[in-house]
């Protein structure tokens, strides 16, 4: 049926798939994007869930969108506007004595001078470390062995970046990069709210507690946002879908052919080379290069299939850590809740009163249970954006940790209701009038996220961001640097370097690798 011919087929119109196709088409390639969902955006969309309300269904704030992408694609002129930028992080305290953080500034909660000073040092130090990652994020990671000259230079540059931190800083980088955030916080701070807030940011989206290895790395990864111009998170006007709509518009303007409701069933492989795709409905498309925005698990296990991959590689794919503990709760409210001791419910609020609280919350998920006292990130975007809720009403978007992907008793309406109750009761400790305001609620467990967004395990980053799964090892040996063991098949999603969040660099770097792949 398909008579059109394309140079490249991109599977998935998540923000990375769209960014990738933009750059590909700007290089003169004819690009077809096939998206399973009815709209663009993947995990970065705005949708309704209750009459008259809309919410950012998965990702709910922008804190890492790369300025190059905004500039290159002209997203601002294509509709990307923020309702608010640089939200403060308010670490909530039950007694109303909250802590407020923005950039290197922190105040409230009877913070000691030494803590304030220590935080400034910590913030700037992790920002310098993040700059090393940010540099690396802007390009294809170097090959570990047998690289060409450019890669050797790139590896050298990475070494140099680390070295340029200075002797003391380099030593500190090497020291803390591999330990856990809990120990680092114990060394440097006293205030429990401060430690709670930092530790929360170090475990967000991961199957980790503050005492887990890789949490410092995760925190530094998150800090990259500060280098991309986000001292605090920003809320796009109209929700997160605004970002991906703008990228999709740019793509269409660049003559990318985007087709929705087109779930790909299979990548066609001929003698080790990807030559096309088969859709769920049986229609086929061919192209010399196929790019997958889907996560590595979906791509290799689902679309390629283990029989077509070497056994050792298949085993490594199977062992990629994709376990998510991150749930999303959406509440529609008949008014603005009042948080004890706070007059500004429009900021980013955290329930993470201390690091041990977060660790204890994590403990449950290790054994297939949801937290009895969960940690949360709370946004009420309708405070800044009237388009999301009817006048006088509000929509609340909460990231909740921890809710294991595999709940021991199984996720069903009953367990979801029980967990929703736990969350609401916890919220009521901080905003006593909240329960009375709730009109409607929607809980997305990791399983729901997997279902709705087609992300294996429902994982924030498609697969865990950890030392063994980053940079030139991401997502897995054999499929690094956007290429795969199948010739002509590439990856461009969050599962690649430099990882998830609405950033766009995976898509951009991947496009560069694909363009390079065509010339060789």
């Amino acid at each position, binding site marked *: 049926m398909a008579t059109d011919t394309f140079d490249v087929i991109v599977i998935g119109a998540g923000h990375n798939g769209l960014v990738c196709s933009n750059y590909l088409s700007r290089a003169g390639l004819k690009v077809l994007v096939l998206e399973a969902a009815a709209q663009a955006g993947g995990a970065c969309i705005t949708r309704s869930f209750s009459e008259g309300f809309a919410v950012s269904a998965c990702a709910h704030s922008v804190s890492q969108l790369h300025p190059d992408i905004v500039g290159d694609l002209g997203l601002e002129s294509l509709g990307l506007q923020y309702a608010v930028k640089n939200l403060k992080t308010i670490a909530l305290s039950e007694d109303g004595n909250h802590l407020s953080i923005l950039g290197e500034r922190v105040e409230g909660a009877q913070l000691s001078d030494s803590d304030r000073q220590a935080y400034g040092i910590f913030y700037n130090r992790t920002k310098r470390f993040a700059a090393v990652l940010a540099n690396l994020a802007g390009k294809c990671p170097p090959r570990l062995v047998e690289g060409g000259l450019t890669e050797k230079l790139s590896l050298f540059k990475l070494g140099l970046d680390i070295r340029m931190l200075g002797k003391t800083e380099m030593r500190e980088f090497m020291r803390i990069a591999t330990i856990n955030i809990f120990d680092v916080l114990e060394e440097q701070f006293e205030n429990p709210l401060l430690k709670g807030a930092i530790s929360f940011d170090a475990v967000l989206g991961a199957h980790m507690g503050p005492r887990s290895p890789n949490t410092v790395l995760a925190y530094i990864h998150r800090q990259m946002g500060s280098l991309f111009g986000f001292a605090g998170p920003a809320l796009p006007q109209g929700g997160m879908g605004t970002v991906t709509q703008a990228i999709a518009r740019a793509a269409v303007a660049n003559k990318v052919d985007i087709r929705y409701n087109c779930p790909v069933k299979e990548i066609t492989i001929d003698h*080790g080379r990807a030559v096309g795709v088969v859709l769920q409905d049986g229609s086929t498309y061919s192209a010399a290069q196929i790019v997958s925005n889907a996560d590595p698990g979906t791509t290799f296990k689902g679309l390629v299939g283990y029989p*077509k991959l070497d056994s*050792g590689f298949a085993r490594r794919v199977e062992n990629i850590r994709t376990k998510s503990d991150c749930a999303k709760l959406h509440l529609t409210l008949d008014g603005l809740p009042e948080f004890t001791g706070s007059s500004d419910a429009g900021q980013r609020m955290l329930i993470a009163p201390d690091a041990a609280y977060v660790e204890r919350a994590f403990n449950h998920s290790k054994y297939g249970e949801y937290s009895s006292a969960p940690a949360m990130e709370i946004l009420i975007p309708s405070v800044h954006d009237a388009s999301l809720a009817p006048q006088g009403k509000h929509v609340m978007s909460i990231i909740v940790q921890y809710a294991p992907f595999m709940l021991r008793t199984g996720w069903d309406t009953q367990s979801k209701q029980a967990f929703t109750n736990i969350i609401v009761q916890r919220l009521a400790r901080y905003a006593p009038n909240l329960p009375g305001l709730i009109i409607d609620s929607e809980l997305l467990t990791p399983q729901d996220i997997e279902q709705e967004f087609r992300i294996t395990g429902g994982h924030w980053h498609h697969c865990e961001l950890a030392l063994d799964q980053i940079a030139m090892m991401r997502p897995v040996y054999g499929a690094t640097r956007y290429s795969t063991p199948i010739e002509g098949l590439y990856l461009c999603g969050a599962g690649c370097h430099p990882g998830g969040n609405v950033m766009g660099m995976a898509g951009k770097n991947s496009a560069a690798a694909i363009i390079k792949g065509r010339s060789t």
Partner: protein
Amino acid sequence: MNLKRNVPDHDERMLLNTPFHSRLQKACELNEWEEWKGYKAPVIFTDLAQEYFAMRNSCGVFDLTPMTKYKIEGPDATAYLDKLMTRNMTKQRVGQVLYVIWCDDEGQVLDDGTIFRLTDKRYRLCSAGRHMDWLQCTAPGFDVEIIDETAEVAALAVQGPTSCNILQGLGWDGLENLKPFNITHFQFGETPITVSRTGFTGDLGYELWMPPHCAEAFWDKLMEAGKDRGIMPIGSRALDMVRIEAGFLQAGVDFVHAETTVRSGRTRSPFELGFGWLVHFDKAHFNGRKALYQEKTQGSPHQFVKLDVAGNRPAEHAFIYNKHKKAVGSVTSAVWSPITKTNIAFASLETPWGEAGTELYAEIYFLRELKWTREMVKCSIVEEAAYNPVHRRAVPARCL
């Protein structure tokens, strides 16, 4: 004081006995045993030369129960094996045996073996090493079940020019018509026995696969049937001689199982072992395909050769030199072949020193009246196995 306890002596190895053990023990006059995959296996029964000549002139019986055996069964068994093996497995008929090798992702040989297609959906894989991990690792995506049946199948190799006649003596009429690498079934009383015309000796010979409960009775019957035709149990040492004569490589000796190597450059690809003919690119995906295709187009670092070594001293473990006196490889197996009167060696050489016609020397050390002596002995590369008699392949089998 009697301290006798029901535990082994501290230096005694706890080895399994095969179902034939009572008979092996009785016959093993030298009491010389070795460990073979956890089993106790005889090295020599009475006399190496006798055992060797039994296999070449009459009939040797070798207990191969310890050989690893996997049952591979399921609707996708063929597709599964086709991915596992470098060979095109879709062409194997029911009742046929194939020699196979399989590789890791890098196209390096993990092991070799024989695969028996017993029914449409059921196979038996026999190999030197244990591979459950890799077999399981290859299974995702296929509807197939893999079971280690090593202990459930007792096996004997009955090899040599009189083997067919001896087995006919058990009432197995028509055995002579069984073609090489084919399978048939016979009865032993109530018990079915699977018979394949296969072996590791390069001679006429059969391998018999039976349930362990009939092992001892069968052994007795076989020995009785063969007593006028020179039947004799043989140990691993004699088998090693004949398999080198026949040109058969032994895993773990002539190449290292890729997954057990520690140092880089010690593994070998099929091309580097002379198994290029077993690699079929024109089929569905198989492990190591990409790496092997690249190697095929770009060339291999090593070559495997059969050597005819001057003199009569086996060139065991010898370095091989080129004419510039540069070491270019070493011998992996060597034997003086009594029947062909040649001095045979297998060697793994750096490319291109394994090309036919290359001038090579083996460095052979030997002790002569308490004095070590070194000799540089000329060797030439030969294409054919030293021993390859017509009766090995003849159908109907030649009966003596």
